[in-house]
């Protein structure tokens, strides 16, 4: 028995949770060192949302009717804009090969990357959304439901988007293809997310829509990392 066989026999099989932690902490650290990119994304969201009151005029009833939809569509676009950076950097510099060959389970490593991606791109949108909701005349409970809906919905956007980002790795004009692949999958989240706020606006309970957003998040959290892992392996072949 060589020292190697002994080393391998001794080495505990690395756990899934350690894999999630590794990629989440590394990606968050990288995100914090390139804050400008995050600022650009947040500004994009703020500007797109702000264009609507400027464009359609200051009619309060119209703005209240438009508000939830606009805030959610802008969140979808911001999410789409941020998706290419999820895997492209690691793909270009060879890190993705090392990730795929790591003894950690690949879906766990990808889950960590998605978590970090959401924390650095989705969470700031959630935080700023009540402020932007004010521009559309949304009030108290409506703003709370908006933020809660985004908090449940934006992680699902990152999870579903990861599948598209992995599938379009190395494809020329991948950005456009990514939009075509992913935006249709975002439709249910848009409907229930905007629907929750609209329900509160007309005096109904937002519970059903928020529950559906939560259910979507759970399903995506289980399935999306597995699908994205399979897509990453195809992209590397």
């Amino acid at each position, binding site marked *: 028995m*060589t020292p190697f066989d002994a080393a391998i026999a001794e080495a505990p099989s690395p756990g899934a949770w350690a894999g999630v932690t590794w990629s989440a902490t590394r990606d968050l650290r990288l995100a914090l060192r390139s804050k400008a990119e995050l600022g650009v994304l947040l500004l994009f969201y703020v500007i797109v949302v702000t264009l609507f009151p400027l464009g359609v005029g200051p009619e309060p009833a119209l703005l209240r009717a438009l508000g939830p939809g606009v805030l959610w569509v802008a969140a979808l676009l911001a999410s789409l804009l941020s998706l290419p950076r999820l895997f492209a950097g690691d793909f270009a*510099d060879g890190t993705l090969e090392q990730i795929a060959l790591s003894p950690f389970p690949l879906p766990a490593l990808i889950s960590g990357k998605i978590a970090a991606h959401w924390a650095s791109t989705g969470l700031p949108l959630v935080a700023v959304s009540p402020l932007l909701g004010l521009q559309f005349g949304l009030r108290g409970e409506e703003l709370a439901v908006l933020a809660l809906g985004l908090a449940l919905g934006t992680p699902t956007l990152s999870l579903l988007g990861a599948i598209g980002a992995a599938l379009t790795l190395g494809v020329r004009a991948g950005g456009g293809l990514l939009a075509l692949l992913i935006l249709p999958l975002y439709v249910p989240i848009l409907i229930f997310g905007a629907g929750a706020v609209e329900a509160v606006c007309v005096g109904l309970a937002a519970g059903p829509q928020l529950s559906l957003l939560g259910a979507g998040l759970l399903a995506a959290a289980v399935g999306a990392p597995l699908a994205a892992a399979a897509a990453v392996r195809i992209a590397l072949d």
Partner: protein
Amino acid sequence: MLEAQQLAAQRGGVPLFTVAFALQRGEALVVTGANGSGKTTLLRIVAGLTLPAAGTLAWNGAAVTPFDPTLRAMTLYIGHATALKDELSAEENLVSLATLHGANVDAVQARAALADWALERHRSLPARVLSQGQRRRVGLARLRLVRRPLWVLDEPTTALDTAGVAILQELVAAHLAQGGVAVIATHHDLELPLGTMKALTLS
């Protein structure tokens, strides 16, 4: 220990090569060949990143398939791309990569590994400002931190100076002496101890 039978690869439907080799403990396969002859493809197949068009790869007599956990636990693959993050320092990059390989590495070990490659003064510099040769050295520094029986090195001497090549040769020789196995693609003549080197030329 590592055995390939009728391992074949294609590129765009055109057959690239069909090779067979067997490596015992302490042996290195040095792959040479012209540009485009398929060296990188062969190494990616051995590392488990690419599916061969035909043939099998066996480790200790058991067939291994791409991405299977056995293969991932025994292989250290260092490709063309250095896998360094520009925003992280040399030391952070090294610790991060070694951890990804499942090694438990502390700062002291990482510094020692960087010192081997004469990088102790550059350890806290972001990888962005390192030269190509220094980036290569940081990538190769994990050879010492991650214990794997099979090393798959794709053009490890690219951008390395003479001193760097000497360090690499020393590390590979020590790895082979411990009973490890290596598959190395290179244009540079590596000087390895007599009797440990098998040559494979792709045409």
